[in-house]
């Protein structure tokens, strides 16, 4: 036998899953006991507690730490346990099998790199055996072995084992999951756990312990295209450090990075680290890293940095497979917080395509809600564009969670990009930004000189609601305060820039809004606060606002909606003014909003918040 205490060179996280009472905790206890991995006195302590309570000792009690768990004989929450074997340190996560505690099982499995899935030989394949098998696949745990337990209760019969293997393989094959191994064991009696069983000479494969060493540490992610999710930006000293985790690929000093969805670009100037000599010059998948850039561009948490040749996808919508763990059902049209890597944005479920029954993978259509512990296929629509990948190509940037009120209530993997109506304009903006020729004066220089950042204040609403009047008043106020503001009036574009268009073409919102947006984009680059209205678009202002947003992205757009009666403002409106307007009060409110968004006042201090700007 190898020396079990030899120095570990790597960690591997393993989860044990399966139906309730199929013996997960017992397997874990036995594995530790038979490899001599339990601390002195642990076995005796638990045995003494059992005697005191007048019940038979079980290996499961070793890790079911809560009194309630021992009294009920079930695992309530996942336990992390540790042991070193053959040069590896294992963190084994014992997940509960009871369906009540599915969220705990999922929390355990989401941390794992490999899994052992237990099936009781006497009971056979049960509901949670299937659900857990399916969820492992959904959670991205691709390496696993199926352990058929309690072989002692079926007289160690090969045909029982073979029957379960056949049935379960068929189930797994429907979603293309292939286990590394099927192992017949008795956890209670120690057959094929750490030691080979003498009762089952017909089985010549590896024991559970041997199987652990077969699992590989996933290492291939460094060979993928670069994905660095921006976590935060620090300025504790002279350095402005962009931090984040490299979830795929590698980077080095001098690399040209593109940040999505803002399309900002810069070169890596340095890789920053504390107490590492000499200072590193590169990074690879898995690392939490800090870099500085050669240009002071404003990037935000939630953006994904990549190389220009291999960009992530960008859209406001995607299709996904989701498991729901929320206290209340997932409902179409409700607001949730979407978190993809470090990006956080409001979203709603645009449609629920089908609910998937994990027992037989049958699909049920026409639901308007997904209940707790159900799996569903749905389309998610976010309030703002998000950078992401398909989960089939990138693990970390291809999955997400949904937050309902205060709680993470569901998780999923992205299966498809859903095209939205801004796709062409977004592509235009991306191509234009990549080719943008800059002068010597940067955004930061202008912001420092002017004492504010560039932004668009856009007034929306029907006719005769006072938009033009308020826009003029705001421009006047800003200039009087020493800000660089300019009223962009659509009429001035019509006679000049749009002079080549026919009367009919001038009536088409799409092209008019595109031209308008590109002019606004130029003005933004001069560092101005652009004040404007949607007057040239008449009642098609909703569509126009969307197009302008896409084209000036990522500059902040402060949208002010004016109406005479109560009506639904366009999405993402910041200030709503309905009924008769007090124009002085309205101006003050907009000035406040400009401050709140960081346009007028630059945040200074140990914890800077950087706002969008070009």
């Amino acid at each position, binding site marked *: 036998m190898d020396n079990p205490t030899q120095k570990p060179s790597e960690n591997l996280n393993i989860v044990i899953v399966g139906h309730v009472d199929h013996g997960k905790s017992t397997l874990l206890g036995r594995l530790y006991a038979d490899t001599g991995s339990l601390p002195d006195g642990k076995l005796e302590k638990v045995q003494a507690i059992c005697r005191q309570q007048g019940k038979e000792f079980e290996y499961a009690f070793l890790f079911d*730490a*809560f009194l309630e768990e021992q009294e009920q004989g079930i695992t*309530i*929450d996942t*336990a992390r346990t540790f042991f070193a074997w053959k040069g590896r340190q294992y963190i084994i996560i014992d997940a509960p099998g009871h369906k009540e505690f599915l969220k705990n099982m999922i*929390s355990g499995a989401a941390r794992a790199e490999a899994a052992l899935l237990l099936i009781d030989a006497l009971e056979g394949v049960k509901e949670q055996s299937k659900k857990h098998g399916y969820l492992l696949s959904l959670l991205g745990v691709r390496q696993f072995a199926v352990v058929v337990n309690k072989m002692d209760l079926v007289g160690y019969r090969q045909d029982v084992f073979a029957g379960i293997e056949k049935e379960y393989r068929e189930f797994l094959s429907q979603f293309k999951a292939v286990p590394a191994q099927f192992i017949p064991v008795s956890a209670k009696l120690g057959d094929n756990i750490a030691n080979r069983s003498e009762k089952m000479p017909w089985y010549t494969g590896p024991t559970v312990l041997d199987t652990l060493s077969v699992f590989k540490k996933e290492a291939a992610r460094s060979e993928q295209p670069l994905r660095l999710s921006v976590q935060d930006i620090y300025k504790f000293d002279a350095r402005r450090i962009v931090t984040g985790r490299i979830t795929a690929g590698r980077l080095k000093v001098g690399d040209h990075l593109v940040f999505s969805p803002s399309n900002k670009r810069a070169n890596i100037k340095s890789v920053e680290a504390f107490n590492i000599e000499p200072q590193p010059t590169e990074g690879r998948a898995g690392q939490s890293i800090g870099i500085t850039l050669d240009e002071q561009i404003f990037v935000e948490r939630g953006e994904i940095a990549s190389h220009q040749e291999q960009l992530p996808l960008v859209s406001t919508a995607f299709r996904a497979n989701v498991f729901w763990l929320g206290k209340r059902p997932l409902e179409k049209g409700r607001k949730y917080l979407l978190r993809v890597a470090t990006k956080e944005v409001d979203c709603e479920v645009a449609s629920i395509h089908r609910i998937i029954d994990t027992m037989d993978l049958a699909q049920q259509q026409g639901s308007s809600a997904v209940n707790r512990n159900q799996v569903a296929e749905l389309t998610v629509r976010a309030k703002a564009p998000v950078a992401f990948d398909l989960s089939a190509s990138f693990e970390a940037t291809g999955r997400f*969670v949904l937050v309902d009120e205060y709680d*993470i209530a569901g*998780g999923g993997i992205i299966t498809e990009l859903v095209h939205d109506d801004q796709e062409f304009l977004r592509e235009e903006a991306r191509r234009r930004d990549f080719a943008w020729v800059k002068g010597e004066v940067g955004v930061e220089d202008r912001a420092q000189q002017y004492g504010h950042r560039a932004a668009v204040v856009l007034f929306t609403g029907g006719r005769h609601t006072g938009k033009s009047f308020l826009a003029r008043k705001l421009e006047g106020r800003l200039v009087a305060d020493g800000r660089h503001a300019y009223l962009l009036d659509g009429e001035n574009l019509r006679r000049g820039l749009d002079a080549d268009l026919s009367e009919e073409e001038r009536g088409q919102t799409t092209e008019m809004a595109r031209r308008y947006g590109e002019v606004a984009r130029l003005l933004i680059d001069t560092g101005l606060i652009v004040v404007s209205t949607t007057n040239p678009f008449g009642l098609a202002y909703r569509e126009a606002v969307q197009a302008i947003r896409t084209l000036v992205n990522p500059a902040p757009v402060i949208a002010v909606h004016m109406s005479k009666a109560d009506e639904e403002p366009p999405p993402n409106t910041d200030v709503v003014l309905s009924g008769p307007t007090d124009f002085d009060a309205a101006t003050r409110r907009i000035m406040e909003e400009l401050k709140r968004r960081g346009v007028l006042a630059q945040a200074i201090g140990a914890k800077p918040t950087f706002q969008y700007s070009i």
Partner: protein
Amino acid sequence: MKHLRQLEDQSVYILREAYKHFDNLAMLWSMGKDSTVLLWLARKAFFGHVPFPLLHVDTSYKIPAMIEYRDRLAREWRLDLVIGQNKEALAAGMNPSMGRVVCCTALKTNGLKQLLEQKGYTGVILGVRADEEGTRAKERYFSPRDKHGDWDFRDQPPELWDQYKTTFPPGTHIRIHPLLDWTEINIWEYIKYENIPFIDLYLDRGDGTRYRSLGCAPCTTPIKSTAKNVDDIIHELRHTTVAERSGRAQDEGRGMELLRKDGYM
């Protein structure tokens, strides 16, 4: 030492998530090996800075050498040290002879709760590890505590991939545990690898004993050991089967489950 870098990357990620999401954040520092490694990881995460206060709940029963060490590092590393103490309980004569769980609850749990309430911290970073003890093995990286600071272990929030619970109702707070995946050996390997200063109470200073876990003087007993440096400690740990906290009185019976349910670290 690839596995140490993996652990470090994960802990740094967690610390940065905590700093991003909690405006009123603090870290608990008991000067023991774990929370000192945690402090070092904060300096890693924030490039030599520690951008939040360090809390020490002083029971008045700590070993004097620990206080000296605390004040020295606070000076050298320019730490914002906040010291809390349940003065009422001490004035009323609370001491370990009144029962260990009773004393721990009064001086540590309640001392901590008072401090959190006074300062209004909404996120508290702690150096607990899953391999120390059974209930800690079941913790989340981000673990909510209710209005009374209690831990509802029956209904813990899901924790998926690298997404943690960072939103919470007013009046409650979150405990953040960046060291959950570290073992006792990992801690010492890292101390050696990074050359982190630690208290020499962890070493045999000539009498054939050392402390393996540090708590209050009356309730912590040294173990027999001749480990005179970090290498010796690592060697000893690789070959021991004695539990780390066997010298900690509060772990007897169901002590820790009861203590932790009520908000103990």
